[in-house]
Structures are given as C-alpha cells and as structure tokens.
C-alpha cells in the first residue's frame, strides 16, 4: 500500500504522546485533554514550564471556563494541530499545501458559522484567559468579519452597547471622521 506520508506523521504525533491532563471547568465538566493540545494553552504551558513543575497526571481547575466553551476550544486546537502537521508534511508540494489550506478554511468557516454572537464572545473570553494566540486571532477575525460593512446601529446591537455620546460629541466625531469618507481624486 502506498505510504500516505501525511497521515502517518499525524498518527505518529498522537501515538507518541498519549499523556493527558485532566481539566475541570467551573460548571462541573471534566475533560481529559491530550498533552499537545493542552500545551497550546499558554496559561497551562507556563504553569508547568515556568514554574518548573513536573508533569504528572494532576487535575486542574479552570475558573471562568465553562464546559461548552472548553469543548469548542479543544475541538479547534486539536484540529489546528492536525492541520499544522499536515501543512508541514505537505511543504514543498504546492497542490498539497493548497488542499490543506482549503480544508482548514472549510473547517474554520463551518466552526464559526455555528457560533452565535454570545458564544463567540464567551469563546473569546475563555481563549483570552487560556492564552491561545492562534485561536484568539481566528475568533477576533471572525468578529471583524461579522461587523465589517455593517451600520453603526447594527454593530451597537452586536456588541450590546449603548450610545453614550452627547449631540455635540456626535458632531465632533462626524468632523473628526470626515476625512475617511470623502472622495479623493480618481480612485
């Protein structure tokens, strides 16, 4: 059977590290998380590495993170690691690289489509706390995509914030911003 280089490498990653960490969420959820995935949470990584702790199968309580969010975070980070490995395996082969990229884009589009605005926010808070840069960037971009080209009223509702300006302040802002909205020459 032809060697499917990509899959073999991905399997090797997960077989070599069957160590898991037990994470407990504040609402009683218990998750056994593969070590490579858990180490994507920089807050955990520093907890072990910076503090010089020996890695043993201990249970860690995560305040401020709920089950639903953690399961989504684990899902994303696990897939992200897989894509990373596939990407590395495909390096140099333009077609394979493109396929991995498209597969990742497809997964990310589906992942974010299923998220309500509230869930998106909860995830951002959780990921910000857990300090997962890649996933935070992804979530932030998703928020930006949802509000880009929308009206001010829509975005206010999206963030659930109130207009706290006085009419004079609003005039001032209008003037401050005029440069961004007037036409300049042939564009």
């Amino acid at each position, binding site marked *: 059977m032809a060697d499917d280089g990509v899959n073999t490498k991905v399997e090797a990653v997960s077989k070599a590290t069957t160590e898991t960490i*037990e994470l*407990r969420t504040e609402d009683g959820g218990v998750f056994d998380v593969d070590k490579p995935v858990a180490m994507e949470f920089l*807050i*955990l990584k*520093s*907890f072990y590495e910076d503090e010089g702790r020996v890695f043993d199968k*201990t*249970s*860690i*309580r*995560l*305040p*401020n993170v709920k089950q639903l969010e953690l399961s989504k975070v684990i899902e994303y980070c696990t897939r992200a690691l897989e894509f990373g490995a596939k990407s590395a395996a495909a390096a140099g082969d333009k077609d394979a690289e493109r396929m991995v990229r498209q597969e990742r884009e497809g997964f990310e589009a589906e992942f974010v489509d299923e998220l309500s*605005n*509230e869930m*998106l*926010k*909860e995830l*951002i*808070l959780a990921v*910000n*706390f857990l300090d997962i840069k890649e996933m*935070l*960037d992804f979530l*932030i*971009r998703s*928020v*930006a995509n949802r*509000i*880009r*080209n929308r009206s*001010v009223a829509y*975005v*206010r509702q*999206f*963030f*659930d*914030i*109130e*207009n*706290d*300006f006085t009419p004079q302040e*609003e005039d001032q*802002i209008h003037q*401050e*911003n005029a*440069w*961004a*909205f007037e036409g*300049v*020459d*042939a*564009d």
Partner: protein
Amino acid sequence: MGADLSVFFSGITGSNCSNGSLSLQSKPSLGDLPESCVALVLASLDPPEICKLARLNRAFRGASWADFLWESKLPSNYQVLVRKVFGELPGDLGKREIYARLCQANSFDCDTKKFWMHKSTGGVCLSIASKGLSITGIDDRRYWSHIPTEESGFRTVAYVQQIWWFEVDGEVEFPFPTGTYSLFFRLQLGQTSKWFGRQICNTEHVHGWDIKPVQFQLWTSDGQHAASKCLLNVTKWKYYHVGDFVVDKSNAATKIKFSMTQIDCTHTKGGLCLDSVVIYPSEFRERLKRF
C-alpha cells in the same frame, strides 16, 4: 487534589474579587470584551471602518485613536512622507492624524505633482500634471495648447491639435514605500466641451493614432524598464498602462523616468488631450485599466 489556575488571574476582565478568583457577568455581551480584544478587532479592520466604529460609544472612540493601531496601518517610511508634506516632523501629531493627513491630496514641486495615501489600504498614489511633463513643442501654439477643464485633477490639460513629432517625457523622484507600482498615462482622444449643458466630445482634430502605435516606456534609477505600445482609438478618458516597477528599499527615494512617443514622421497625429501621468499601487492596476 488538583491545581487551581485562578492564581494566574489578576484583574483581566469582568468584575474582580479580592480573593483572586473572577466571577462572570450574568448577561454575556460583546461589550464586555477586554480592551485588548477590542483593540485587536479594530486592528483587523481598515481605517474607514475604524473611524466608523468610533461612533459606537466613548470606549470605542477612545480605542479608535490608539497610536499603535494607526502605526500598523501607516507605510513603513511614513516619517519621510510626513516630512514631504510638512517640511519637518511635527512633534505632537498622533498617528491617526498623520494617517488622515497623508490621505489628503498633497501637492509638491510647485503644484505640478501631488500624492495621497489610499484610505483603505494605505497605499501611496501619485499624479503628475501635464504642466509637470516635458512636452516637445509645448510652446508652439500651432501644435499644443493648455486647456482649463474640470475633468482634470489639476484643472488643466494639454491638447495637441496636430504634430509630426509627438513626444512626452517626465520624471519623478519620490520616497515610495516598498511594493509594486503601476504607471499610467491618462489620455483622451478628442476634446470634451459643454454644449447647452450637455457634454460632447469634439473629435474634429482626431487623426493619426490608428496608423502606427504609440510607445510607452518607463525606467527606474535601479535599472528596471517596462514598455508597452498600442493604437489609440478611444474617445473618452482612459488610463493607458505603461508598466510596473518594484520598490524594495524605501529608505532612499525612487527615481522614475517615463515617456510616450509617436515619432513616425510619415504622418501627423492630433486631437489628443493629455491630462496626467499617475502611479498607483499595482493592486489597483486592473481596476484602472477598466476605468
């Protein structure tokens, strides 16, 4: 027994309790996002969007002025560009104001040239007036004249009625930020005028452009060269693409020379309006070609 990560958490978001653990707000909303996350969202948007969101509320307005946000949108050599506008770097101008200022049309070289930054992308664009070009025979009223018109960003175009030797040269030295740029001549066959409120194109002098092609060329001081040629037959304003050049070191200014010639002296040509030469970041090339 397990570890508790709440010790790592001191005052990031939500309400802080003195014992070091945090409690979630009961009503989740994106307005409770930490400032750092709001800043990241703004950084993912383009400048006009950022300015639009300044209208949301005071917190967003404040965030929309953050220097680090605008620094990331400015070209890497923006200080050089600012000096070109102001002559020297004003000490107290925030980065957002600098960005806004650079997006205005800034004239230089005795108003024969202007540059501006494209609002959304921060790309630098440049335009050179017909009066900033070396036109062979420009002083001879039998051939060339300057015509005031609203159709030009410089309010005047050069018009050739009839000539054997058609040659237009120009050069510009400018601190372009690194990137790839496209150079165009903006031309029209025929002369637009208003006739009882309607715009009409007077083509009575148009001749000689469909016999042999016009040659366009550009050269940069670091040895790049591009050329194109075509017959002219369009009686409305059009951008004719000369070629592209690459700027890979924006410390020094880039010097570019360009020319448009039709010097086949077996036939005359005329009836052409020359507005300007423009340089745009190449991402706008296809859009301008279709203009």
